[in-house]
């Protein structure tokens, strides 16, 4: 009985001490609100980004970009298959957000501060609706 209690105490203590995954929390808060469904099928350009999404039950990582993909996340999509080329993109850099025509939003770090941005026009193109709470980040 005492051992069980000690174990529980240890788990709570460890969880309390563990650092929150800020980026994943943000994606989990924002993207399901826009897509109004879970899990969202995602294709990413880097292993690092894929690792972040793999920890969540709200997202499903697709290994090869095909028709089933609902969202692209990243910034280096140079050689996408035709099936994937026009999928909505959520950028991870300002440059990608600015340059890619299918980027409807972005999350990146600027001067150590998290930045989130949306493009209203691109969102409309993909029939995505930005919730009221996020509209202040849209341009």
């Amino acid at each position, binding site marked *: 009985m005492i051992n069980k209690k000690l174990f529980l105490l240890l788990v709570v203590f460890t969880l309390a001490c563990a650092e929150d995954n800020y980026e994943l929390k943000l994606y989990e808060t924002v993207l399901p609100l826009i897509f109004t469904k879970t899990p969202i099928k995602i294709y990413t350009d880097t292993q690092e980004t894929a690792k972040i999404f793999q920890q969540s039950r709200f997202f499903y990582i697709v290994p090869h970009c095909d028709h089933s993909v609902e969202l692209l996340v990243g910034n280096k999509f140079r050689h996408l298959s035709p099936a994937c080329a026009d999928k909505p993109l959520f950028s991870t850099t300002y440059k990608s957000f600015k340059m890619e025509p299918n980027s409807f939003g972005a999350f990146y770090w600027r*001067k*150590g501060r998290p930045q*989130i941005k949306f493009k209203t026009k691109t969102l409309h193109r993909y029939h995505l609706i930005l919730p009221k709470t996020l509209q202040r980040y849209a341009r």
Partner: protein
Amino acid sequence: MREKIKNLRFIYIFYFSAVLVLVGTLTIYTLFGETKNYIEEVTQKIYIQDTQDLAYNFAEMIANETGKNIYINLKEDENLREKLEKNLQLFISKRYRYIYVVDKAPKGQNYRFLLDGSKKVEEKSDFGEFYEPLHVTKFQEAYKSAHPVYFTQENAHGVWITFLQPILKDGKTDALLVVDFSMQGHKLIDNSLSELDGVLKISIYVGIFIFIIIVFFSYIDHKRVKVLESFKDKLEMRVRQEVEKNRQKEQQLIEQSRLAQMGEMISMIAHQWRQPLSAISSASASISLKAMLGKLDNETALEISTAISDYAQHLSTTIDDFRNFFKSNKEKQEITYTELIENVLGIIEVSIENKNIKLVKHLHSNKSFYSYPNELKQVLLNLIKNAEDILLEKKVENPTITIETDENILRVRDNAGGIPPDSMHKIFDPYFSTKLDKNGTGLGLYMSKTIIEEHCHGKLLVKNDEEGAVFTIVLDGKKD
């Protein structure tokens, strides 16, 4: 009860020590935290003081270089932008992580980058890129007040303090020069105090651990003490019950012993009464004879009736003596061995003489002492009766009972040959008897020993001499 209080105090001292250890450690850690904050504040102030003039001059220079409207001028003049950014780059160092200029976007609460001193491409912002700072209110405050503002960052990566220097145009804030301090200063303080911090953190864990251990063991100890106390109470009650049982048993034995002695007393009374009753009978017969012969005159009748009255009085005294014998003394009385012996012999002497046993007295003690006379008489009577019984049983020639006193010692000896060695160690045991002819109860000597040693705090010893058994009573005779 006293033990209980002692134990309780011990437990409270235990608890108090545990709380003291924990509170002491936490207090030290709190003090350490406050000191650390104070050092950080002082360091921040020094950093800010160093930066203030520099930022002010820079803001002045930007204001002078950019004409009426910073945004429009910088948007139109790319060369000026590059020149100013190069100037800003000069100050990027270990201390200053980011230096940039932002102004308020025309709509909404956002800000936009105008100049950026960052050298790395991935860190550099675009001109006009919207920017959402973490402490918007501080930016607004600097904008409104047109005075420098600084604050500590909590969530910005790699930034410790942010210093905001307003760039003024006609006394109004047109843009903000933002200086982000790197974590270097903070790390320096942290690294300097990390060992102490570590030690104190360990102390807290150890303190908490000790506290838990102490509380746990105190609780266990408390429970154990409670169980022991309950066990002790039960044991004490059991002992009290057993003592009471023994006392009652002893009382019963005393009663039994007295009843046994009573039977012997009746025989002694018979001996005592035989002579006076015979005298009364003889006087009565003399009166009757003289009356029949007509020779009874008043003088003779008076003389004989006086003699009868004296004999009756003697009989009454004898009864009183026996009655007193059976009364227990509740308080100690002053007495001498001689008085004691005379009293006992007054009861038993006739009986002994009638059995042709010689009674020898060597009384050398006139010292008075305090004791329970009736109980002592019972013992002495028992010793003499035992001597009488064994002398008769063994049909000893010239049977003799000798009573000796010397200071605080009384001895009763006989010449019946002594106690057999195999019985010697058992003669004071209850229900042990060597009497063959009579039915001995086996309680006489046991009671005698109990009376002398338990009640009178003396000693009753036995040994054999060359003629027979010797019983010795030794009394301290103290009043209390």
